[in-house]
């Protein structure tokens, strides 16, 4: 009888998790009630769990370093991995609703941290519904960049409420974003670093970019 190989979710050659064991459906319902843990407020978010090397103990929340980049709907983590080495001093986080995919990204980051000591310590992922709970993770004007790669158009009228970019949600994104602008090396990554972007490139399709900056309204009374 031939020996059967033990199924390894982590590939022995590269040390990275194998995608076929973490496959999930493309859509997860963002409207449903969630039962995963959500921090009560941004100050309760445990940085030492996500960035153990930078914040060794959980009560060392001195507030000096905060998360600055957020990848909303990070999928399998392609963009985050590329950004991590490009901005080694910036803390960044990915938010994903599907649990299997989040597990994949977690394993991927852990494997990369082991394989490259000192690198990839500034990136992490959390399973959450970003449409409902962004204010729970980030304080006012905390983020400098938010990534939405790529918003599902949801063409049907009845699905418009599931859109990640909508006038109401923009209010919340504006709340967590700082208002500033700088010349950016990130823009090139938008089409090349994500799995979706690579898929489109493989199939010879076109990509379109949209970059927005947060403005301060002129009639604000303060």
């Amino acid at each position: 009888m031939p020996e059967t190989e033990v199924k390894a979710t982590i590939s022995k050659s590269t040390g990275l998790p194998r995608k076929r064991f973490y496959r999930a459906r493309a859509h997860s319902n963002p409207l449903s009630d969630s039962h995963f843990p959500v921090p009560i407020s941004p100050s309760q978010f445990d940085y030492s769990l996500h960035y153990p090397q930078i914040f060794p103990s959980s009560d060392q929340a001195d507030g000096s370093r905060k998360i600055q980049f957020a990848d909303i709907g990070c999928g399998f983590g392609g963009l985050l991995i590329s950004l991590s080495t490009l901005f080694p001093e910036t803390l960044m986080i990915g938010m994903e609703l599907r649990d299997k995919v989040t597990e994949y990204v977690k394993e991927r980051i852990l494997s990369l941290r082991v394989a490259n000591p000192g690198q990839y310590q500034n990136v992490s992922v959390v399973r959450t519904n970003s449409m409902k709970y962004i204010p729970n993770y980030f304080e006012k004007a905390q983020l400098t960049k938010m990534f939405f790669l790529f918003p599902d158009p949801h063409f049907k009228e009845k699905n418009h409420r599931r859109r990640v970019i909508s006038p109401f949600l923009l209010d919340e994104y504006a709340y967590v974003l700082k208002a500033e602008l700088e010349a950016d090396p990130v823009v090139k990554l938008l089409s090349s670093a994500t799995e979706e972007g690579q898929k489109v490139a493989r199939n010879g399709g076109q990509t379109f970019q949209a970059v927005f900056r947060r403005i301060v309204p002129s009639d604000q009374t303060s």
Partner: protein
Amino acid sequence: MEEAEAEAEVESNRDNVEVAPALIAVHPEQISVAVAVGPDLRVFDLLAGSAASLVDECGAPFHKDPIRAIRFGSRGKLFVSAGDDKTVKIWSTESWRCVCTVSSEKRVSAVAISEDGCHVCFADKFGVVWVVDVAGSHGHVTLGDRKPTPLLSHYCSIIPSLEFSPDGRFILSADRDSKIRVTNFPKKPLNGAHEIQSFCLGHTEFVSCLAFVHARECPQGLLVSGSGDSTVRLWDISSGALLDTCEVAAKAGLLESNGEAEEHGHAVTDLCTTISGLLIAVAIQSLQGIVLLSCDVSAQTLSVSKVVSIAGEAFVPTCLGFSPAEGKLWMVTGVSSLPACNYPPLARVRVISAIDAEQEPVVLGDDEIPGGEKLLETLQGSASVDESAFLAAAEAVKTAMRNLLIKKQYPADNRESRKKTRNDRKLKM
């Protein structure tokens, strides 16, 4: 066995969908008192000493489904009622005519009137807050039907409470996901309110009620909020900072360490701040009476001042109203209808006077309340109410609130059978 249990649960859920708690609102100068029970709106004019007759020639007359929110404007000129029939009716308090009917796409869960009386905001069950311009409505001028515009939205979360800050600068919306959002109320609200001032985060369950403590030192007021986690919290709205937490259910002696204590049985159902004396009246599910909290503005703390129980009746208030003119707290308990027990819509009104830091609160008897027997007859529907209905009503209200606001827990064992209707799970032929 499992199927029978599931069936029984579905049936009781259906019954409880229509159960709406009775609501009360008091005119800021105690000119009139309004009670809403189910679709019925009852108003008693205290100056005239008789029931006010409501005239509604605006759209579909009166409400057909249970009313979920009523409110007087802070200037006393407007009154708003809204409910499950997806309409918001705005009344003039001078003539008690309906001056405007606004139709909403979804059922309405909360209403608020801006401090200057020019805008009415209402929140629907999907978390969108709408605004309507009502400037120029007074007396006998009818505005007809108005279309609302969306102001802001909480993503897919019921908003049980909507409030304006006392200086009119902010609009506050509390939702089922334990968040309180403080948004700048712009000069042209019809374009939407896009600048969020802060989020007041700290509650661990749905936030059911909001109120402001007025203080001279703090012109924008301190926010007090009550929630399903049985706490009342004090906030500073410009920064969203949590100033103090008061575990009202524990302090009122409701939580005993017995294994049968249910998880969500002690939600705070309503809050009411008193203008002078800085006392806050709190109504809790399953407490027969109210808790009075005192707020120390300089120290920014909350503490339990007194627990007032209503002797002689199983009276669990569902809604509170305060009249600053006479320092009286008005309470109502009641429910729209109890299908299981065949009781008609029931409402019972009680009043507590001498709400003051120095005096002892006195629960007034039926003959001592302003308006007397006539008021009770108008607002309650009858002068005396069958007492045995109270406990059933309290239970029904508690279950209805739980079904509406507590997140459903789906058991893991029949998860596969629930996925049977999914397209990708259907057997390929």
